[in-house]
C-alpha cells in the first residue's frame, strides 16, 4: 500500500522463496563466484550470438529458481523481466520459452529492483500466488549495442565499468520461508547533466541518492535501520559521489553498511576499472551473494537500490545528457 509519497509497504510481506543466478567465465573468477548456481566457461554458451547467449543465461536462471522453489512453471502466474537489449529481446524471448504471462520492463540496470518491487506488489495485493522476476545482461551484447565491438582496441578511462555477464531470477510467493519483501521506493528520473557514457557511476549517483532520501522520508527511517544498503552499479567513482551527496544532506552511512554491487562483485586482479555494471550486476549480487548471506543469518535488514542509466547510443550521439533512475527494495530475514 502507498507509504509516503513514492513508496509501497507490503503488509502481507511476500516471501523471496527461491533465487538463482547464472554467470559467464569472467564471473567464475569474481569475488562472489561461490554464490552462483550456474557458471559457464564459454562466453557464447555454445550459442551462435551474444544475444542468444544472454537469453539462455536468463532462461537458465529462471528455470533454476522455479526448480529451487519446488514449483513447476505452470504454478507461476506472472513473469516480470527486463534487460538492456533493444526492445528487451532477452526478456521477451525467455518469456516465450517459459510460457508464463509476462510483463516486459525497461529500467536499464534498475530493472532488477523494478521487477522485484512490481512482483512483490502484485503478490502482496493477492494478484498472484507466485510471481517470477528476473533480469540479465551480457558483456558482449551490451558492448556491441552501446559501445564498441568486444575485440576493438580502445583504451578505457578509469571511470569505465565492466558489464556483468549473467542473469538473476527470484520467485516471489505469498507464503513460504525466505527473506520477506517489506517495501519498495520507486525512483524519479534524475538528470544532473552528465554526458559521458564512460562515467555512468557519476551519472547515476544522484538518482540513487534521491531514492535513498525518499525511502528514509517515506518510511520515516534512518540508515541505522539497515544492516546493508547496496546500490546497484555505481562503481567506485559513483559510490564515492553518492556517499558525498548523502553526507551533504546530513546522512552518514558507515562504510560497512553502505556498499555497491558493482564494487563488490569483482576482485582486485580483474581489470574492470571503476567496477561492474549491467542489469545482472545488482541481480546476481542480490539474488546470489546477499540472499545467501541473509539465509546464513549474517544480514537481517537489507535495502537494495538498483540504479539505471536510461540512455541509448542514439541519444548519446545526439549530445543528450544521461537521465537516470533508481528503485529501492527493502528485504528482511526473520529466521526460520
Amino acid at each position: 500500500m502507498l507509504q509516503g509519497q513514492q513508496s509501497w509497504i507490503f503488509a502481507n510481506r511476500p516471501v523471496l522463496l527461491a533465487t538463482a543466478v547464472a554467470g559467464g567465465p569472467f564471473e567464475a573468477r569474481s569475488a562472489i563466484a561461490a554464490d552462483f548456481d550456474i557458471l559457464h566457461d564459454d562466453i557464447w554458451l555454445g550459442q551462435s550470438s551474444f544475444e542468444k547467449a544472454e537469453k539462455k543465461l536468463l532462461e537458465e536462471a529462471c528455470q533454476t529458481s522455479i526448480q529451487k522453489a519446488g514449483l513447476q512453471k505452470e504454478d507461476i502466474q506472472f513473469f516480470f523481466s527486463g534487460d538492456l537489449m533493444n526492445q528487451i529481446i532477452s526478456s521477451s524471448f525467455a518469456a516465450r520459452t517459459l510460457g508464463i504471462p509476462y510483463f516486459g520492463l525497461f529500467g536499464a540496470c534498475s530493472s532488477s529492483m523494478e521487477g522485484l518491487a512490481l512482483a512483490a506488489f502484485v503478490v502482496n495485493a493477492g494478484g498472484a500466488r507466485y510471481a517470477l522476476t528476473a533480469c540479465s545482461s551480457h558483456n558482449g551484447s551490451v558492448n556491441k549495442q552501446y559501445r564498441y565491438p568486444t575485440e576493438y582496441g580502445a583504451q578505457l578511462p578509469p571511470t569505465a565499468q565492466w558489464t556483468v555477464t549473467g542473469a538473476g531470477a527470484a520467485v516471489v510467493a505469498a507464503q513460504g520461508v525466505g527473506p520477506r519483501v517489506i517495501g519498495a521506493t520507486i525512483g524519479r528520473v534524475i538528470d544532473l547533466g552528465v554526458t559521458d557514457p564512460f562515467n555512468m557511476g557519476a551519472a547515476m549517483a544522484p538518482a540513487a541518492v534521491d531514492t535513498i532520501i525518499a525511502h528514509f522520508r517515506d518510511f520515516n527511517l534512518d540508515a541505522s535501520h539497515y544492516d546493508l544498503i547496496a546500490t546497484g552499479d555505481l562503481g567506485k567513482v559513483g559510490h564515492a559521489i553518492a556517499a558525498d551527496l548523502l553526507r551533504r544532506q546530513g546522512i552518514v552511512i558507515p562504510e560497512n553498511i553502505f556498499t555497491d554491487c558493482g564494487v563488490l562483485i569483482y576482485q582486485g586482479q580483474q581489470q574492470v576499472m571503476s567496477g561492474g555494471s549491467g542489469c545482472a550486476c545488482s541481480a546476481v549480487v542480490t539474488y546470489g551473494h546477499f540472499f545467501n548471506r541473509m539465509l546464513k543469518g549474517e544480514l537481517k535488514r537489507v535495502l537494495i537500490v538498483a540504479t539505471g542509466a536510461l540512455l541509448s547510443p542514439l541519444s548519446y550521439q545526439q549530445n543528450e545528457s544521461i537521465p537516470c533512475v533508481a528503485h529501492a527494495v527493502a528485504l528482511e530475514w526473520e529466521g526460520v
Partner: protein
Amino acid sequence: MQNNNLPTQEEYQQLAKEYEPKRPLLKNCIRAFFAGGIICTIGQFFQWFYMTYFDFTEVTASNPTVASMIIISMLLTGFGVYDHLAQWAGAGTIVPVTGFANTITSAAIEHRSEGYVLGVGGNMFKIAGPVITFGVFAAFVVAIVRILVEKLGVI
C-alpha cells in the same frame, strides 16, 4: 514534489569532476611511445626482410610490409589479444595501421551473427568508416589546392 535538495547541474558537474580519476596522461604517453615504436620496428623488420630476401625496393616493399602487419593485427584481434594490448598501449596500438586493421576485423567478427551481407558487410567499416570518409575528403581538398597552385604558376 520535494527536490530532496540535490545540487544543481553546474554544482554537480563540478563535484563529479572532483571524483573523476584522471587519465594517467604521462604514463599513457610513455606506453604509447614504446608500444607504437615496437610496432614500427616490427614493420621495419618486415621491410628489411622483403628487401633482403625478395626482389623489392624500398618503395615497393611497403605493400607486403603493410599486408604483413595487417595480417598479424587481424590474427591478434581474432584470438582476443589485441584489445588487451590496446588497454595497456592506448594510442600506441591505435595509430599504426594495425589499429586500423583492428577496427575493421573487430567489427566484422562482432556482426558475423547478423549474416555476411547485412552483418559483416554492413558493419565492417562502422569504426573505420569515418577515417576513410574524411581521409578521402582531405586528400581531395589537398589535391585541388595543389592543382590550383600549379596552374596559377606559383610552383
